[in-house]
């Protein structure tokens, strides 16, 4: 028998419902409005009144309309068929919705996330009598390029014995593939899919590990100076127009991970569309398959209901954890976590909670922290190491990093890639400001050299600040050359042309090679330059040579010959050390 309630109050996407029996905190309920069933979630209970946030527009809903409680927490379906899909924040498949309902998102129209009819070729890995526990692999089905492991449901607690398991063959999502027996001899059915409540982390692994391996993003500025680790977290705060989304898009394309989950949360639909439409067309150089084959997109853009925007990041991270359980390295890109925080603020406001800073709810920090804490490198039950890396953009109000969302995020992430408006306006991309950013992770470039380059950049900045006060004539030639060196490193190495097919992504080997080249042959070198004008000309020419070098494919003929040319050019200007042989 379903428990029911009656609406007594409506204010935007928030309703109050009077109920008779009991309700669960965070359980899903449906408003019955004529033919429509509108999904909502219990978020506060007082006496016999439950307050619910509605994942839909509430226009036309009336006081007195009936509400059905489901007894289930907001959950997602996990199983083969997720890869390549585009979901909204509640895991509705948007492509199917479009086929069914056309241009617009029809209110109250929900479809199954995974096709129940599709057949999957299942290969068992266990046999009758084996002992298993939550997260253990029972078998696998092929999904795109991966072995999609079918695991003991994460909600099963304790040790189970395999009572039966099906033979290798084709099964759909509705056919049980195994029966497991618990200690009390009760039998449970297992299917190719399972469901999991989005707000609870999946913890079916042996232990958490320290994130140590560098995640190669192929962005030189990130990998060489402010690296991210597999299983780590990073944030990209920046004012509007500084290139957060473009940066995330580039990372989603080039990062060396198995699976990318993109959570487009409360941002522009136009940008998501680009990802949606281009990913199936772009070939992933590592797999020679379309990029969309290893991507799941959660798309809840700014004009879609605000409550499902709030849940979209949880939906995304749950799917990420699911694939991690199979032994894969997953990267979750959330754009933008500020919109998610704002959704919390809107809901909190409707609940008339006492506001914290800038009207954000008091629990803002703990929610942000527990979201990023779902990243991590783990050792699974079978010993495999797998990871979820989370990268979130932050859109600080007024571009001011002091605001609550940025500050709360900085407390919990391992790398901070701060974008600056000045750099963006000067067309220096990526506009990550090397003077304010930091990372707690290790790069594949020698630590001492990285540290030295940081000082070079800081020194160059100091000199150029000084020049603003005392003028070019007020500083020594030595200082002038130092500032040119810093600028040169910034221009040819830190900046990367996203529209140049070669320059847009630099593999690890090339980064090491070029970084060393610049370090030894330019930064550490002493050049025989007569005056400032000659110095400027020298570096301008060098810059131009490097720009061309950046556009040549790694180890191609052009690459090798330009490297030679640059070496000759540099050697000509090298100061000959008198007592050296």
């Amino acid at each position: 028998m379903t428990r029911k309630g009656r609406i007594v109050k409506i204010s935007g996407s928030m309703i109050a419902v009077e109920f008779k029996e009991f309700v669960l905190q965070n359980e899903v309920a449906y408003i019955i409005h004529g033919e429509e069933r509108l999904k909502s979630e219990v978020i506060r209970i007082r006496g016999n009144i439950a307050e619910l946030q509605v994942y839909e527009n509430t226009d036309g809903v009336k006081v007195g309309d009936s509400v059905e409680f489901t007894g289930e927490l907001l959950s997602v379906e996990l199983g083969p068929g997720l890869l390549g899909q585009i979901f909204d924040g509640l895991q509705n498949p948007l492509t199917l919705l479009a086929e069914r309902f056309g241009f617009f998102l029809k209110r109250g129209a929900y479809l199954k996330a995974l096709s129940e009819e599709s057949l999957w070729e299942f290969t068992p890995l266990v046999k009758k009598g084996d002992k298993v526990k939550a997260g253990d692999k029972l078998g696998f089905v092929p999904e795109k390029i991966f072995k999609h492991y079918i695991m003991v449901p994460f909600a099963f607690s304790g040790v189970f014995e395999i009572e039966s398991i099906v033979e290798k063959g084709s099964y759909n999502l509705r056919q049980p593939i195994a029966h497991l027996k618990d200690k009390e001899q009760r039998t449970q059915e297992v299917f190719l899919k399972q469901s999991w409540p989005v707000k609870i982390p999946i913890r079916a692994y042996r232990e958490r590990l320290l994130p140590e391996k560098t995640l190669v993003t192929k962005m030189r500025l990130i990998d060489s100076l402010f690296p991210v680790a597999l299983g780590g977290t990073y944030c990209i705060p920046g004012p509007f127009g500084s290139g957060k989304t473009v940066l995330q898009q580039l990372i989603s394309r080039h990062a060396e991970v198995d699976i990318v989950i993109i959570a487009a949360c409360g941002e522009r639909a136009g940008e998501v569309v680009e990802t949606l439409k281009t990913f199936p067309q772009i070939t992933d150089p590592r797999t020679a398959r379309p990029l969309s084959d290893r991507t799941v997109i959660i798309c809840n853009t700014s004009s879609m209901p605000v409550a499902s925007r709030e849940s979209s990041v949880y939906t995304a991270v749950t799917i990420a954890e699911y694939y991690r359980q199979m032994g894969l390295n997953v990267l979750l890109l959330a754009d933008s976590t500020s919109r998610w925080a704002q959704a919390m603020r809107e809901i909190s406001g409707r609940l008339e909670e006492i506001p914290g800073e800038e009207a954000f709810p008091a629990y803002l920090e703990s929610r942000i922290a527990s979201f990023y804490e779902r990243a991590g490198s783990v050792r699974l039950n079978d010993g495999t190491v797998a990871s979820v890396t989370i990268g979130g953009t932050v859109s600080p109000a007024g571009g001011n990093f002091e605001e609550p969302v940025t500050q709360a995020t900085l407390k919990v992430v391992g790398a901070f890639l701060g974008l600056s408006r000045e750099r963006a306006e000067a067309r220096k991309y990526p506009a990550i400001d090397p003077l304010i950013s930091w990372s707690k992770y290790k790069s594949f470039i020698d630590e001492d050299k990285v540290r030295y380059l940081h000082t070079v950049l800081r020194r160059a900045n100091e000199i150029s600040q000084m020049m603003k006060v005392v003028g070019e004539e007020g500083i020594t030639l030595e200082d002038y050359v130092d500032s040119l060196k810093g600028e040169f490193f910034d221009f040819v190495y830190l900046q990367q042309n996203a529209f140049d097919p070669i320059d847009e992504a630099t593999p690890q080997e090339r980064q090491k090679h070029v970084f060393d080249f610049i370090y030894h042959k330019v930064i550490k070198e002493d050049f025989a330059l007569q005056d400032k004008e000659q110095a400027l000309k020298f570096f301008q020419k060098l810059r131009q040579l490097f720009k061309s070098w950046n556009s040549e494919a790694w180890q191609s003929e052009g690459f090798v010959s330009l490297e030679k040319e640059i070496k000759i050019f540099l050697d000509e200007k090298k100061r000959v050390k008198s007592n050296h042989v």
Partner: protein
Amino acid sequence: MYKVYTEILEIAGDVITVEAENVGYAEIAEVISSLGTSLAQVIRLEGNKVFLQVFAGSKGISTGDKVRFLGHPLRVASGEALLGRIFNGTGLPRDKGPSLSEQVVEIGGPPVNPVKRLIPHKLVHTGIPLIDLFNSLVESQKIPIFSIPGEPYNELLARIAVQAEMDIIILGGMGLKYDDYLFFRNILEEKNAFGRTVFFVHTASDPIVECLLVPDISVAVAEDFALKGKRVLVLLTDMTNFCDALKEISITMEQIPSNRGYPGDLYTQLAKRYEKAVDFEGAGSITIISVTTMPGDDVTHPIPDNTGYITEGQFYLKNKAIEPFGSLSRLRQQVNATTRSDHRTLMDTMIQLFAQYRETLEKRAMGFKMTDWDKKLLRYGAMFEKRMMSLEVNLPLKEALDLGWQILADCFKPEETGIKLSLIEEYWPKK
């Protein structure tokens, strides 16, 4: 048929409360008072209490006045009959024409399914080099003109509208001065665009709630045209007035303000309107250009700040020219790869050099000695401002590109620009 309620319990701000049953959220009602009839919308339901926001304001409403619920959400007539006409924020005629009730469409309809959108890909030529060359406008883009009072933003808006050659123009005026409205009408008439234009005008002296409805009604009508295959250009001026109306009403409604008095959902409210910009797969499109006047020329003020996060860039109008820094079209890379092979490099190089010119200006202002390089930059900057930036320049894109190379060649040697050799060989003007 419709029940009429006479007991008004409470009047606070422009919100009245009545007791009524079977009323839907966001439903429309008529409030009939001695001053006439106004529409009102349900904004909260609590038990049998219904809170209504009165569009014409609560002035002159008595507790004995009648309220009649219409049983439907806010609607507006749409279609060809609207062309060349002028309406207020609730869709009633402001000109002498008849009121319309054909082809009604609902206001504030559902969002577009993202998978049914097309990637923006059609360049809109405006003849303004700072837009076409440096910040290309793209069909279905949503982009504001950031400016301050006193700048010719409405002139710029009108010029883009006329030169962009769209099928339908919808002008939503919020807190518009009557002079401005006349200006738009005259210029559109002059350029033979009046017959394909619909005006929704809220002037500074009209009730504040009507101001809130202007963007909604404008995009609702635009959407109807777009679904019928038309390329629609929506002009919204000035969105700052819309946000201030939102602030006024939310504070009256005792909502907790978040930043400088603006409601916490300002972003969502703006996004709901701006996100209507779309290129439909298999139908028309909506492009939105708006005006956001920045209080105190402060881009970090909540209005331009929230706007900037939603829109696809902005044109920053300052000192009667589009400022290269601060202006950005996020969609330009969708179109500027296919115009000409030098477009992107030229765009970046000219801006980088212009940035150095600005630094040199600072240096000069502080009295430092100008080096040869500085002198070159000064010459370049002056030329750029005069021949590219000035709003008086009207050039097709290809000519603007050629002009760009000419300016570079007049001021610099090829290697001073940092442009890669292959492009220099192809485009550097031969003496």
